[in-house]
């Protein structure tokens, strides 16, 4: 039992368990399917935020183009679903039945060859993860090998997001243009719009998210995780310890891209369409704020961040749409100025000490770190050397 307790404390698994409990049990029990589906949608953004924790929090690389990968993953999934929805029977009013409606509107008379693989689910699923990762590899390999970093990398990823958006919108015969790929109905004959399927998809999504968090946690705890932190601190030292720093950055960028793509695919499945408005710069930056609000060093925090910001957006845009943008602005500024470690940082600096105080009163010999801690034990210093709100010193590993 003690061994288990130690393992939980060491790996930060407690917070992951709490999160799993919240999204797999508490939400489904307390929400109707409409709200739950909304939460499911927010959780797909959480994938991007989790990827950003790895990329930005651990790797110190800020990408403003994560929407690209989220969108690509979503598009790959949407392409499969669209082909399934475009069987000759249901598209018989078109001049070329059997191809997606937007192709027909653009005088395309046969399916482009690169759409063909999306007739098969296994190929499509592979493409969901692979295509964004390959793109991420191409971008990042070229840049990191040449030591492009920091702000420049952020600006270039932004340009990439812009290029992809313009391309998708411009090539509407092949991509559905600005409307995106809409009216998706079934997955291998299974109606994804039913309430029952929405439940299933929600749980698949939640399970995938927990899986991704565990994977990332495992990576953080491996030597690679240590190296990422080391690189963020003293990149040259890592390089002159015999590591190919660029490849580690490429790895974490590709990893974040793959994770985002899974989120995108789950988004398509749960929401029923995909459009270029997720590929562009604005959604990409918004996704960064999810991670920032949750705490850029905390995987679990990123999920809460995504949930909180989106819930806030839904709530405030209903009750006070004008106020919403001000609130969003305040969120961006506040999280940077006052809480650089986001929710997780607040938890570490305020909630946790309070817990321990209560504990130590009740049970003087209580070991530290027993309440679920965000899984970022050794490194609760913010990336930048600037001042922190007090009390976030990391304990020894």
């Amino acid at each position, binding site marked *: 039992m003690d061994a288990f307790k130690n393992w939980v404390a060491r790996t930060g698994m407690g917070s992951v368990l709490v999160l799993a409990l919240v999204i797999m049990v508490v939400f489904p029990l307390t929400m109707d399917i409409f709200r739950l589906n909304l939460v499911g949608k927010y959780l797909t953004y959480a994938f991007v935020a989790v990827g950003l924790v790895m990329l930005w929090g651990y790797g110190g690389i800020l990408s403003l183009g994560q929407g690209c990968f989220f969108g690509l993953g979503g598009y790959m999934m949407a392409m499969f679903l669209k082909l399934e929805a475009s069987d000759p029977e249901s598209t018989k009013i078109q001049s070329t039945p059997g191809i997606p409606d937007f192709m027909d509107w653009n005088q395309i008379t046969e399916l482009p060859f690169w759409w063909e693989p999306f007739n098969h689910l296994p190929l499509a699923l592979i493409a969901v993860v692979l295509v964004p990762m390959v793109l991420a590899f191409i971008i990042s390999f070229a840049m990191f090998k040449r030591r492009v970093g920091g702000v420049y990398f952020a600006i270039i990823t932004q340009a990439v997001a812009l290029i992809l958006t313009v391309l998708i919108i411009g090539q509407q015969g092949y991509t559905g243009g600005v409307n995106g790929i809409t009216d998706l109905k079934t997955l291998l004959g299974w109606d994804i719009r039913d309430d029952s399927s929405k439940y299933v998809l929600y749980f698949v999504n939640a399970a995938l998210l927990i899986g991704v968090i565990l994977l990332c946690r495992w990576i953080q705890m491996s030597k690679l995780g*240590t190296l990422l932190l*080391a690189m963020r601190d003293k990149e*040259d*030292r890592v390089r*002159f*310890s*015999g590591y*190919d720093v660029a490849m580690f950055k490429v790895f974490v960028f590709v990893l974040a891209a793959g994770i985002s793509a899974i989120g995108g695919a789950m988004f398509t499945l749960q929401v029923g369409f995909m459009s270029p408005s997720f590929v562009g710069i604005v959604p990409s930056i918004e996704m960064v704020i999810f991670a920032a609000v949750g705490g850029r060093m905390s995987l679990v925090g990123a999920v809460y961040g995504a949930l909180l910001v989106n819930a806030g957006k839904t709530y405030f845009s209903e009750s006070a749409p004008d106020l919403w943008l001000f609130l969003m602005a305040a969120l961006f500024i506040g999280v940077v100025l006052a809480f650089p470690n986001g929710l997780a940082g607040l938890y570490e600096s305020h909630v946790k000490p309070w817990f321990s105080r209560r504990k130590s009163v009740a049970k003087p010999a209580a070991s530290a770190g027993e309440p679920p801690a965000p899984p970022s034990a050794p490194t609760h210093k913010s990336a930048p050397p600037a001042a922190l709100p007090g009390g976030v010193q*990391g304990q020894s590993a």
Partner: protein
Amino acid sequence: MSNTDFVLAIEDLTVSFDGFKAIDALTLYVDRGELRVIIGPNGAGKTTLLDLICGKTKASGGSIKFKNVEMTKLQEHKIVRAGIGRKFQTPSIYENLSVFKNLEVSFPRGRSVLGALGFRCTDEVKARVQSVADEIGLGDALDTEAGLLSHGQKQWLEIGMLLMQEPELLMLDEPIAGMSVRERELTAELLQRICKGRSVIVIEHDMDFVKRIAHKVTVMHQGKILAEGSMDKVQNDPKVIDVYLGH
């Protein structure tokens, strides 16, 4: 040129920044097991020379051969893997990580991406970390966060991190800068211990310290070698005196 017995053979090395020749047709040989100290006034090109050897700066011309393998075209991490370790002027350690982690990360295994993912901290690694930590006097401080160490301890830690890699050529840029007298003595002893079985290049200004450790001294000035030989010899070289006192 043909192969040599030297561990490091630098010939005709040149680098220029915007026309300014920081290193000018420099030739330098370092023996196996030798502890070489490079001295010279500020701006002589000492640090640039180390940068060139470890690949941080790319040479404009000339050759650097390490164990008869050309290094000038290699990427930094390949040079390190070939067996060259380098300590920076200001202590360059991972302040957020514990001493143990600092040393563990420097262990020369699991250096590829997948290797790092699969790397396990075995008993062998732990034993090695412990022995190096003992060597640098941090054997009791393994769990301390590196940022909390004293300045001197940080310098030692960085040397320890290099020792973890078991380099055949170790380059130290001002290892005793900012150290107390006692720490300097300890460092001198450390250097004498670690130069067994490997070559060491040290850049240093402190002449007492140099005298104490150097096998051979090279004096650099304006990107060139001004004098080379034993400490006594270079100290009495009129050119050297001129450079150090003349302006």
